């Protein structure tokens, strides 16, 4: 089937859950409640690094309405985690950051639970803290004194405060530096950024008579949550049921367990349903933000601006637990390599523990940090060499068939097209239209996240289809996209596809709404299920129509063979009476491409699946006196392979850029002496409607071999380039790069002052 003839796929159709969401009828996890439900709250450490000498909850337990209190002493002593199993439900013998969970209370009301928290007495003995990741690399203080006893993925290389260290090496970088025309060294830093989902993390748990605990929550990864909960509760996974009624955003901040374990443990303790919801303060002090990082880059070029060799180091501040830090740090290496011919590379990532909040996998983990450093440095070099930054990029970008950093082969390459389209749209020929105004460009590549998906699809007697998936519709429209693919393949309308909610007990496995994969992977699973359903329907139709299967096709909700036809609805009814109904299981997995393992060491994601390419261009003005940035225009050219629903692809681009603008200019969780200074939405500055320009999307379609109809992953890339593109435009407008995020007006003004003096 060729894409331009598609009736459903590729069209701007309204999402399946839209009506529920605009009428207030869509139920989110935060809306969920059960009769007799208790309210849980978590006591959090007020010390950044301290021994816990004593926890006395007796006064709290005596408060009327308090139904249960748990601390580390009351629960199975296990450590969990993705890369490194270093995490505990509660602080054990020591508190590792301000905000570390110490105890949890369930009470008949939130107010009572809060009073109980205040009545729990904790005796601490302070330990010397480590807040600076570079200091943590050198210090003799151990944030995890027993780190060697922790289990970890075999690929992860650890050492003392280092939770993970990876390398990519290509050729002989040192030799190339020695004979290069010029060598540049720069240092960049980026800040902690909260994912900013509007629905806080929330879970309601209840245990049934069979000892099965059901958790209604807003996780992005129900199956991962199920597995982790089973470990924490010391139960077989089948006795943990995770279901996601609805989720108000996630952006990677709801991948790993947030409050589900507190709800489940309190429910077990009290034998009552318990709901736990994060407060704003907890979100900003104890959630899973994007890590702060430091990037050091050294780059050698020839006279024409060709990249000869690059070395670099990214230090990712994981906070108190590794979280996704080791993987995030390692991914930065591919981002630092960029969509450029590798030349010689010597990149290293270090994920380091500090006494701050542990971090997660916010949308395109490591992407914006590494890209900010790498792409700003390209512009710095171009300026020094007297080259047009666009031209310098075009001289270095990969072409079809070129090797990538891991020795894999770049396929369906569109980076040049993206760069040229973004540059043309922004009016690149006129980079400084007036004083204080400048244009910047940045580009990147990014993976389509792997992992497997399974779906069940059944045909109902009215001819409609029901899609059962374990993938969460996080808001992107991904499940609508998958439903479009299914409808396309079954000759149905989109409105004929019903989508069920996610329930680990009933739905087939899905790797989850993480990375950039849901439409891609669930879509591929839908293709497989549709093929199986066609087979079943054609076999059944062959009996009914007395026609050969080879002549059959699906058309307008019928199986057609020559001039004979039978409706899908009729076949579904016949199958119900005679065959148990039309039902199929479709699965999909994208195998990783071949690569050269000698280039990549201790890297949990050594090679990228089906990469996408993209370029961002921005036109902005800087107030020469105050440093305030006004974005005049913002253009994105992104290769999506095949646009399954252009409306929601634009939605991903516009929303991702808005988050990137926040990271570039205003957002930062500010720590001072281990304490978050802005733990509220008054001072954590996410962009408002006044702060985001009308983002212009140029959808580039360079088909992939692996995605449905040639699609590539879409969701994460839009937030990668904004800091770099904006940084380069600020430099075009002012002559200086504020090389730390966020680039606040104050930092820009300071940089301009330094330049003028």
């Amino acid at each position, binding site marked *: 089937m060729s894409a331009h003839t598609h009736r459903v796929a590729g069209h701007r159709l309204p999402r399946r859950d839209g009506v529920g*969401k*605009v009428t207030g009828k869509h139920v989110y996890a935060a809306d969920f409640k059960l009769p007799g439900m208790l309210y849980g709250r978590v006591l959090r450490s007020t010390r950044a690094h301290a021994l816990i000498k004593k926890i006395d909850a007796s006064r709290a337990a005596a408060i009327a309405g308090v139904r249960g209190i748990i601390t580390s002493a009351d629960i199975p002593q296990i450590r969990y985690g993705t890369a490194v199993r270093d995490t505990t439900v509660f602080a054990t013998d020591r508190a590792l950051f301000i905000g570390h969970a110490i105890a949890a209370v369930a009470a008949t009301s939130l107010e009572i639970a809060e009073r109980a928290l205040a009545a729990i007495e904790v005796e601490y003995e302070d330990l010397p803290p480590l807040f600076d990741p570079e200091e943590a690399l050198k210090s003799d203080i151990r944030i995890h004194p027993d780190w060697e006893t922790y289990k970890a993925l075999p690929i992860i290389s650890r050492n003392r405060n280092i939770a993970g260290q990876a390398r990519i090496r290509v050729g002989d970088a040192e030799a190339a530096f020695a004979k290069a025309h010029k060598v540049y060294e720069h240092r960049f830093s980026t800040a902690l950024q909260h994912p900013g989902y509007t629905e806080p993390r929330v879970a309601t748990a209840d245990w049934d008579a069979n000892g099965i605990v059901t958790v209604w929550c807003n996780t992005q990864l129900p199956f991962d949550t199920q597995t982790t909960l089973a470990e924490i509760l010391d139960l077989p996974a089948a006795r943990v049921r995770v279901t996601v009624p609805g989720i108000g*955003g996630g952006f990677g901040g709801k991948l790993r367990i947030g409050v589900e374990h507190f709800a489940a443990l309190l429910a077990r303790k009290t034998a009552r349903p318990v709901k736990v919801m994060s407060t704003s303060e907890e979100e900003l002090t104890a959630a899973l933000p994007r890590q702060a990082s430091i990037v050091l880059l050294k780059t050698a070029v020839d006279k024409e601006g060709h990249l000869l060799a690059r070395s670099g180091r990214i230090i990712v501040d994981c906070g108190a637990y590794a979280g996704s830090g080791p993987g995030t740090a390692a991914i930065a290496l591919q981002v630092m390599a960029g969509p450029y011919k590798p030349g010689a590379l010597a990149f290293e990532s270090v994920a380091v523990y500090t006494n701050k909040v542990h971090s997660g996998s916010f949308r395109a983990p490591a992407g914006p940090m590494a890209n900010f450093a790498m792409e700003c440095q390209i512009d710095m070099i171009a300026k020094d060499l007297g080259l047009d930054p666009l031209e310098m990029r075009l001289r270095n970008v990969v072409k079809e068939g070129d090797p990538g950093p891991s020795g894999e082969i770049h396929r369906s390459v569109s980076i040049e097209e993206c760069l040229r389209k973004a540059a043309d749209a922004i009016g690149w020929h006129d980079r400084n239209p007036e004083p204080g105004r400048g244009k910047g460009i940045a580009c990147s590549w990014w993976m389509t996240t792997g992992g497997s998906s399974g779906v069940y699809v059944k045909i109902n007697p009215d001819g409609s289809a029901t899609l059962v998936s374990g993938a969460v519709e996080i808001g992107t429209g991904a499940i609508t996209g998958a439903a479009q693919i299914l409808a396309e393949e079954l000759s149905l309308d989109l409105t004929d596809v019903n989508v069920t909610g996610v329930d680990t007990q009933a739905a087939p496995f899905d790797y989850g709404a993480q990375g950039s994969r849901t439409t891609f992977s669930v879509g591929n699973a839908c293709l497989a299920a549709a093929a199986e359903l066609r087979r079943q329907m054609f076999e059944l139709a062959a009996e009914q129509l007395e026609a050969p299967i080879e002549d059959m096709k699906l058309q307008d909700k019928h199986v057609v063979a020559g001039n004979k036809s039978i409706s899908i609805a009729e076949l579904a009814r016949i199958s119900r009476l005679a065959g148990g109904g039309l039902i199929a299981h479709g699965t999909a997995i994208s195998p990783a491409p071949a690569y050269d393992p000698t280039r990549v060491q201790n890297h949990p994601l050594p090679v990228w699946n089906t990469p996408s390419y993209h370029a961002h261009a921005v036109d902005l003005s800087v107030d020469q006196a105050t440093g305030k940035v006004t974005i005049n225009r913002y253009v994105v050219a992104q290769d999506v392979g095949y646009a399954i629903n252009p409306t929601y692809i634009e939605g991903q681009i516009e929303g991702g850029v808005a988050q990137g603008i926040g990271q570039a200019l205003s957002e930062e969780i500010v720590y001072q002496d281990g304490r978050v200074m802005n733990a509220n939405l008054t001072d954590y500055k996410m962009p408002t409607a006044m702060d985001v320009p009308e983002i212009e999307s140029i959808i580039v379609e360079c088909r992939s071999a692996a995605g449905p109809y040639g699609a590539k992953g879409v969701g994460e890339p839009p937030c990668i380039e904004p800091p770099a593109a904006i940084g380069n435009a600020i430099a075009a407008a002012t002559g200086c790069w504020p090389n730390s995020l966020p680039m606040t007006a104050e930092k820009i003004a300071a940089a301009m002052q330094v330049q003028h003096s």
Partner: protein
Amino acid sequence: MNRKILNIVVNGESHQVLIEPHWTLLQVLRNEIGMMGTKENCLEAECGVCTVLLDGKAINSCILLAGQVEGCSITTIEGIGDPEHLHPLQEAFIECGAVQCGYCIPGMILTAKSFLDENPGCRPSRDEIREAIAGTLCRCTGYRKIIDAVATAADRIALSGAKQ
């Protein structure tokens, strides 16, 4: 507890609720009356997901004491349309692709309605819309399609007003 009776009209229906003095309108709407379309997040009037109309004007229900709205009329998202009879704003939000996770959308639609109702039949500029909705944070959309939706709805409302 010193509970008191609160009389309010929600979406045209009279309600009598026994409340505690510190309860906010948000708590009463969600916990006592069951209007779950009114969402809960920051509880400090910074995000706007809790927006409802108080006598027609958008306010943050999270920091308004319920006891202060005795006798007032409240409109929640459930009160402006239902799946069979969508309000033009609701329709336009779906059509324009302005809905992603959807958690801010009830508040966003009510903020927009309050603004459009200030000047019946108005067709605000995109900048005016932008300013009007700035008190409601959306993390998914980057706002462009939300502005599209409000502008589209405003046009339709103005047009149908002109016809009548």
